């Protein structure tokens, strides 16, 4: 017995060094810090995106302009009627055209062909305002649009 324990004591595998653990963790940390995009726009609208199954993906963020439609988060100040948000501010339907044209001019030339307008619209909003925006988009000749939606989990 004593011989056995002596033997095993000699041949024991050394403990795994944890000295590099902080480095690994730091690497992961830096990865996530770089990947994380802090929200660019303030949430001034309450938007719950609808769910769908037939989804397409927009490949390049550089070629997308966002138009948000939803009810204001601050109902006491801005009322509960659905509003449009462009960049960081409330906007009217009339502002959409100039906004889209400005966004289009800011897109790099190589991506102009795939310029897309993404509509992030709350599912409770009525179609009236959405249609008005769509008509403005047609006038601005921004015909490729994307109704932002999340993947629907289908239970079989």
């Amino acid at each position, binding site marked *: 017995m004593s011989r056995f324990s002596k033997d095993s004591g000699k041949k024991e595998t050394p403990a795994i060094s944890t000295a590099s653990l*902080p480095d690994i*963790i730091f690497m992961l*940390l830096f990865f*996530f810090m770089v990947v994380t995009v802090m929200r660019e726009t303030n949430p001034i609208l309450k938007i719950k995106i609808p769910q769908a199954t037939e989804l397409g993906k927009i490949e390049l963020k550089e070629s997308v302009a966002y138009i948000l439609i939803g009810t204001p988060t601050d109902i006491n100040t801005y009322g509960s009627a659905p509003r449009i948000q462009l960049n960081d501010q409330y906007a009217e339907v009339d502002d959409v055209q100039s906004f889209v044209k400005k966004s289009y001019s800011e897109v790099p030339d190589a991506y102009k062909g795939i310029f897309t307008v993404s509509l992030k619209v709350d599912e409770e*909003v*009525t179609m009236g305002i*959405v249609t008005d925006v769509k008509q403005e988009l047609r006038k601005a000749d921004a*015909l490729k649009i994307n*109704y932002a939606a999340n993947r629907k989990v289908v239970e079989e």
Partner: protein
Amino acid sequence: MGRSKSKGAKEIDASSMADIAFLLLIFFLVTTTIDQDKGIIHKLPAWSEEPPPDDVRIKDRNLLEILVNANNQLLVEQEYVELDELKDIVIKHLDNRGKSDKYSTSPQDAVISLKNDRGTNYGTYIEIQNSLKAGYAEVRDKYSLSITNGSMNYKEVAKCAKNDDLDATKRNKCNELKKKIQGEYPMKISEAEPVNLGGN
């Protein structure tokens, strides 16, 4: 170890470094939303100042008329239907090939007309758009599988046609397939200007 103690300048204990890094890591893990831009891609018709010509008449049976009112109720071909029945109706309409008098004579002639109220919920509208797209996707998938002997569905064909990594001959073949499928089942969805009946 004993030496450093006697010399005075103590080493800073770095064993808690990992814990601190872990905490930060978990914070970023939780706050990160790698949000992808996903959605239903749609193409709008070009704007024209003049009103649409009146003489565009489509044979009644080739037109699937969908009306949505302000209460999110659906009327398809003058009949009240539920939302989840819509996809099957679309498929029946597209793949009718003259069998039933109610639906289209051929997939190439089939047109779907969608008219909604200004008071219709956006969620309902998206569900309808989704059903229409799903209907088209299903008939295209079926056709794609039949012409490729079951090796590729429509999604795979479209993906292959866009894939730059493949060599040109293969890609062209996929492109041809894609064109053929789209030619067989062209997506013709017409959206009328919404009416205002719901008082919104």
